């Protein structure tokens, strides 16, 4: 492989990822504690929305109940570690097993539904789970919440500072994204896209649509559960109001903002949503001192409509285009002014 080919590959495929990871490593050392906690929240939401992106963007199934899986993970970890004193990893695994089982039980009947009906069914499921969180007071603490969840501990290593937790969350998010990307680029991913394209055609080429819908639903539930478990360890206190239908809608908004048809879209949506949310909390009271905290919802409603009209694919494809243009320009420049022994070709192709 000649120099310019390597250079193109780097610029187009790995350059962005490398720069992104480099930024992730540097940012916590220059960020203050508030920004660091915001970035941890972004990472947690990013894990949920990456799973949701697979479900919505690739398999074309909508869910308004993912806060329930997020909550199941959170309560599983809280109960396992807080009540029974088990290691953190056990809490996560119990959460995953429980969320996965619930996803199978819910998915079998609901995934036969389509569009609005599926949305309503998952919304109903979310409300049922919320009610369980609220009413099972002996286990969950009810509306008073669950206090004293210990910090996450993995094989004796305690993630007891924001910096440690930040690296744990973002490493998991990157692994989660790469794992999802691997699935999307595989035969399974093609099957999911075919289901999104046309149920009838997917069926006619021999894709077991119910099975794939269920699998991706369970996978997205597992992502949400893992994020929920880690969230519980991070905040050390949870209550049912953190896992309402509104939280599910928030996840959905993130996916739409970021772009559901791009595996990075969920993460981008989480970054934009959380940062904007925090910004609005600061800025809005300056101009409208008397408005309540719900004002952000109005803004996100407007933003959602604007994105659906002007960027229906979300932000990720637009950012991808900008990156490719920059990388392409850089690559051309490198080819023209490249080292003397480099092939004098643009983009590495001999013509």
């Amino acid at each position: 492989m000649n120099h310019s080919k390597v250079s193109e590959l780097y610029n187009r495929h790995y350059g962005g990822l490398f720069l992104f990871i480099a930024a992730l490593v540097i940012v916590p050392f220059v960020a203050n504690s508030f920004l660091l906690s915001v970035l941890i929240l972004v990472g947690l939401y990013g894990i949920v929305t990456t799973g949701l992106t697979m479900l919505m963007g690739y398999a074309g199934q909508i869910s308004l109940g993912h806060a329930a899986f997020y909550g199941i993970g959170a309560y599983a970890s809280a109960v396992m570690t807080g009540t029974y004193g088990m290691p953190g990893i056990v809490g996560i695994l119990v959460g995953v097993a429980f969320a996965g089982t619930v996803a199978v039980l819910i998915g079998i009947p609901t995934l036969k539904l389509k569009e609005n009906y599926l949305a309503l069914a998952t919304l109903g499921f979310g409300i049922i789970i919320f009610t369980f969180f609220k009413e099972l007071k002996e286990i969950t603490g009810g509306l008073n919440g669950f206090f004293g969840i210990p910090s996450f501990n993995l094989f004796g290593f305690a993630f007891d500072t924001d910096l440690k937790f930040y690296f744990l969350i973002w490493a998991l998010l990157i692994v989660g994204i790469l794992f999802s990307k691997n699935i999307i680029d595989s035969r399974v991913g093609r099957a999911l896209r075919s289901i999104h394209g046309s149920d009838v055609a997917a069926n006619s080429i021999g894709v077991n649509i119910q099975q794939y819908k269920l699998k991706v639903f369970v996978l997205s539930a597992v992502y949400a559960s893992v994020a929920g478990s880690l969230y519980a360890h991070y905040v050390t206190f949870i209550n049912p109001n953190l896992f309402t239908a509104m939280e599910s809608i928030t996840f959905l908004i993130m996916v739409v903002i970021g772009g559901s048809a791009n595996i990075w879209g969920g993460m981008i949506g989480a970054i934009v949503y959380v940062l904007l949310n925090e910004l609005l909390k600061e800025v809005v009271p300056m101009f409208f001192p008397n408005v309540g905290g719900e004002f952000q919802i109005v803004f996100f409603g407007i933003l959602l409509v604007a994105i659906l009209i002007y960027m229906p694919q979300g932000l990720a494809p637009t950012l991808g285009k900008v990156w490719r243009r920059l990388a392409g320009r850089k690559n051309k420049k490198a080819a023209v002014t490249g080292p003397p022994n480099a092939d004098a070709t643009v983009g590495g192709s001999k013509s």
Partner: protein
Amino acid sequence: MLQVKDIHTYHGFLHVLKGISFELNKGEIFAIVGSNGAGKSTLLGTIAGIYQQRQGKILYEGNDLGKQKVEEVVKKGICLVPERRQIFDALSVKDNMMLGAYHRYRQSKKTLQQDIDRCYELFPKLKTMEDRPGGLLSGGEQQMLAIARGLMSNPKLMMLDEPSLGLAPLIVKDIMNILDQLRTEFGTTIILVEQNVKAALKVADRACVMERGEIAIEGEAKSLMKDPRVRDAYLGGKGRTVPV
């Protein structure tokens, strides 16, 4: 090659197929015509494994397909080209075709590429637009793509559900010629469901007319073309319905 014996299929409580029976020989084109709601698409869906019959048998190459799921049926060499093409709009022409080979993932890329090239020989226009999203193709091109996608599953029996729907007469003629070519050059057996009775009977060896979930008339396509009942009901003659 295929024996359909006394098939009864229901959609919920609705009794759609009421004892359908017919046989199909290898390399034959069998046309199924009939009005809307006669149960033609349900019959194809039942053979393809999309719908399960409550009664009756489907024997394919001597083996009972039983209540096998659609993926098992596709693996056995039966493919369905669905009504209204059902192209994957967002995927490229080539990706659409590759999805047709969904169950041949164990085969080498070289083999699959050879099959894609074979499809391009049949439909040269598709090659010139292989990177174009399927949704941007015209109706005729999409139908070609739907057939090519079906061929990528390497079918011995291909079932086409109204391939002429919404297409210009010249395109319909091309499509029918391709079906004839598939039969003569590749030995593919074809079941063709059509509302364009004239075009279907022209290309078919044998045919049947379906009415309200039953086969009303069955025979050689040429003789059906001359049958006064068919002529009256479907080819512009007098009368309105085919007597059962």
